[in-house]
């Protein structure tokens, strides 16, 4: 393999420009949705009321929330179409699909954290943490879209749904929003910013490129696959007694 073509300036291309923009859009729409949505959920707090008044009132806030939600929905749907078309017609590797190895990786990592093993799980293009977040955004996003539209057009949906579905949609929307918000501000921000491995910021989703060191460390299986190099015998910490089996790459 032409390793020199893949590694440019110590970095490997990880994301296409489409993915970079996609993330930017999701990031911005998510932030706007959180601000305009949670200020309605927590309407009793002074900060929420301050935000609502500064944005021009609750009607304006709802308008912003719904329009942003619409953009978010379009991005998500487009993403799903692109992914489906890619996998089905262009034989893309379905690297986000959760498989058995993700569960064993998670257990292996836990073992590593507790000091039972000396090596962390060897992951492919996306590790189980990233898959967890990805599916969280996709499934959570679909749930938010569905319930969001029900709340936006209650009279339309009540034509073929029982009335109770409206408050039920509200319950799901508001709870899921809180869950998503909490996961993002703890888990995602830790992994993308505060984790000592990436601090001060994991820039790969913004530049589309990742350093060879991080690639070898975080995605060894993918590195081996694209470069043809084997990392097994490379001196990486202590010699491991429990060697990881290279799992199936998809």
């Amino acid at each position: 393999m032409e390793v020199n073509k893949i590694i440019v300036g110590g970095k490997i291309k990880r994301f296409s420009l489409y993915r970079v923009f996609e993330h930017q859009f999701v990031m911005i729409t998510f932030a706007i949705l959180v601000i305009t949505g949670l200020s309605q959920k927590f309407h009793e707090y002074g900060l929420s009321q301050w935000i609502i008044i500064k944005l021009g009132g609750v009607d304006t806030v709802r308008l912003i929330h719904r329009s942003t939600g619409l953009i978010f929905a379009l991005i998500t749907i487009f993403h799903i179409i692109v992914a489906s078309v890619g996998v089905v017609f262009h034989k893309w590797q379905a690297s986000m699909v959760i498989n058995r190895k993700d569960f064993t990786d998670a257990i292996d990592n836990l073992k590593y954290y507790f000091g039972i093993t000396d090596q962390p799980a060897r992951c492919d293009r996306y590790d189980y943490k990233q898959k967890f977040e990805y599916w969280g955004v996709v499934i959570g996003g679909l749930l938010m879209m569905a319930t969001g539209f029900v709340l936006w057009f209650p009279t339309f949906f009540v034509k073929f749904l029982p009335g109770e579905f409206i408050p039920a949609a509200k319950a799901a929307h508001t709870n899921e929003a809180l869950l998503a918000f909490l996961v993002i501000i703890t888990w995602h921000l830790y992994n993308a910013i505060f984790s000592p491995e990436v601090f001060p910021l994991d820039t790969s989703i913004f530049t589309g490129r990742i350093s060879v060191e991080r690639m070898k460390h975080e995605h060894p299986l993918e590195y081996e696959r694209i470069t043809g190099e084997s990392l097994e015998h490379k001196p990486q910490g202590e010699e491991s007694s429990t060697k990881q089996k290279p799992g199936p790459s998809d």
Partner: protein
Amino acid sequence: MLSRFAFLFKLVLVIFCLCFPAESIAVQSTPSGTADLCLGCHSNKDFTAKLKNGEDLSLFVNKDLLENSVHNMLDCSGCHSGFSPEKHPSRILENRRAYAASGAAICKSCHTTFRTDLHGRMVKAAEKSGQYCVDCHGAHTVQPVSMQELSEPKYCLGCHLNKLSMTFKNGEKQSVQLDHMILKASVHNKLYCTDCHFGFSPEKHPIRQFKSSRDYVIASSESCRRCHFDKYTKTLESIHYSMLSHGNMKAPVCVDCHGAHSIGRAGQERTVSAKRCKKCHREIYKTYSSSVHGSALFVDHNQDVPVCADCHRAHNIEDPRTFDYREKIPGMCGGCHANKELMDKYGLSTAVLQSYLQDFHGITLKLYKKQKDAGNKITLKPIAVCVDCHGVHDITPTTGPKSSIVKANLVKRCRKCHPDATENFPDSWISHYKPSLQKAPIVYTINLIYKIFIPFMMVGLILQILLHIWRYVVNR
């Protein structure tokens, strides 16, 4: 001969009175000789005469009071001319009033001028009013004016108990006759007339000209604010005052609701309060009377239920069509319906207020209020509040045969803002119930799942983060 002598005597007496102040005379003299003779009979307490109408007229004269009276230097015949130890003509008068009238005639023979014009008018009108000198000043007990305990109301009522009326420029007439009993029963029974009718006094009785009786009523209401200034300032914010200031003379003023001389005590039977509004708002009163609150008030005499003034206030009555008023409605209803002690009496839930306030509409309403307070200029939609579903004046019970009205109201009300609402759309409002397995099982289940799932997820993720950091530190 005798009458000439009497005239001379009176003349001397008048000159004498003018020369000496009343007090100096009072001390020095006692009733003269003939008085003792007269009192021989007239000091008998049971001495009476029968009048033509059958009434008994006491002829008793209290000697002590006579001696202390301002007229103590007069001989009995000084007033009772024609009577003397020698002559005692027999007169039988029609009734007591006739007797008082004859007494007044005696007074007027000496007292020809009066300190005030009003007094002159009173004396002149005595014939018509039936109020004679002796009615105020007494007969044998006449005191110097400075010492008389002649209370002012008594003075005014001297005329105003009688059929008097005033005429306005437009030809309307209004009675200015007073019923003494009404005045006594009023909460103001300790006040003097002039406390309210300022500008008037026993000395002054200005003649005022009003265009109409309504003008007079409105002007009279100005009196109230001298004491009830707090209430008066509240009325300045009221819709009634605003109507009045825009030239609607029919708008009610103090006396229209409270009455004038008949002002009752506050906190009396609540029907009284409701009935005041009825004078103008007849239709609404009718509707209210058949509502759950009105029928409890009028049929069961329940004093817990709200009357007009509880929601609309008594003095600072707002325009109920404004956003500001609408915004206050949940609080108004909540005033009673969130009061546990009160609602327990009727087995009603107090969760109604919070369940509304925490719902979409309640939140929107509250945020609108905040926006308005913050000075945001935006169009505020008429958010549904309690009265939109439950009725305004025609509030119906939510259980029993009339409860279907609430449901019917609901669809109608939803359609005001959600024009394409179907019949089952109101079901999307799970009433005032807290979601439960019985009332809203889907909502309840979703909430329950997240209640468990969110903490579980968060604890798991945070533990992983901590483990990761710990491992990283250990590795270094």
